[in-house]
């Protein structure tokens, strides 16, 4: 089974943050396994401990720390191992807003994936200064380590034109979400025609069926790495665990 996978990329963002791709030859269990691996098994760096030197802002240390933990950091996984730490620091004095871009890092490879995430707004005389340790861990440990956000899949749906519709029938919208396979074998996302099949096939009688073993994945990352890398790492982790199971079960 493992050698007849067929992968086709349907759409991909220029910044590499999100992609939609079709995989044929998957069982539903495998599809869900990949989804779960993308969410929980690819490690990313996230702030884990914060040492506050000064916090005269209106928020408690713990609240600021929680916000910091959710700032996505770029994670070059080739250079880090699980449990490795990177130190970050921030020093902002009001009146100003402390943004994720104000964070200084000890490693130039690791920086906030987005520079414009507000951490807290500081008024005159308020100051925020801290040092923080980012740790490499997986989404299993804490949701802040999830590399994949909004990860999901749907069956590929085949739309067949059976013929012309009975002219006396009222034209009702036929809403369908996801990616369809047309009679010509073309892959079209339904958003392209307003998710309404009657826009694409006016006056036609249609049959919509799920294509067996074909799943359309939609993966979005938080910016810690490219979608390609995220998905490949997830699949690798799945394979590694399957191999581990195979060697342990074999006597």
């Amino acid at each position: 089974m493992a050698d007849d996978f067929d992968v086709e990329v349907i759409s991909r963002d220029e910044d590499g943050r999100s992609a939609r791709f079709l995989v044929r030859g998957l069982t539903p269990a495998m599809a869900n396994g990949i989804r779960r691996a993308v969410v929980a098994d690819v490690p990313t760096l996230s702030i884990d401990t914060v040492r506050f030197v000064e916090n005269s802002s209106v928020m408690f240390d713990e609240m600021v720390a929680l916000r910091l933990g959710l700032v996505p950091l770029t994670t070059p996984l080739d250079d880090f191992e699980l449990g490795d730490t990177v130190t970050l620091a921030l020093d902002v004095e009001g009146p100003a807003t402390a943004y994720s871009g104000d964070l200084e890092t000890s490693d130039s490879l690791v920086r906030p994936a987005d520079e414009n995430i507000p951490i807290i707004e500081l008024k005159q005389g308020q100051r925020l200064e801290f040092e923080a340790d980012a740790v490499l861990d997986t989404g299993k440990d804490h949701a802040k380590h999830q590399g994949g956000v909004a990860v999901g899949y749907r069956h590929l749906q085949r739309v067949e034109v059976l013929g012309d519709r009975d002219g006396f029938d009222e034209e009702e919208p036929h809403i369908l979400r996801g990616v369809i396979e047309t009679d010509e074998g073309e892959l079209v996302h339904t958003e392209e025609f307003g998710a309404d099949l009657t826009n694409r096939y006016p006056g036609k009688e249609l049959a919509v069926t799920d294509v067996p073993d074909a799943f359309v994945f939609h993966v979005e990352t938080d910016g810690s790495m490219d979608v390609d890398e995220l998905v490949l790492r997830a699949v690798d982790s799945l394979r590694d665990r399957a191999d581990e199971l195979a060697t342990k079960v074999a006597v």
Partner: protein
Amino acid sequence: MSYKCSRCKRDVELDEYGGVRCPYCGHRVLLKERAPVVKEVDVR
């Protein structure tokens, strides 16, 4: 214990017998200052 008088904003050291009162302006509302130590917080 270091406090700050809420009226004259001056630092006040409270002792056991002086009662709660600012020695400079006599105001009875004192605010406790944040301790000047580094506080470590776990992000959980």
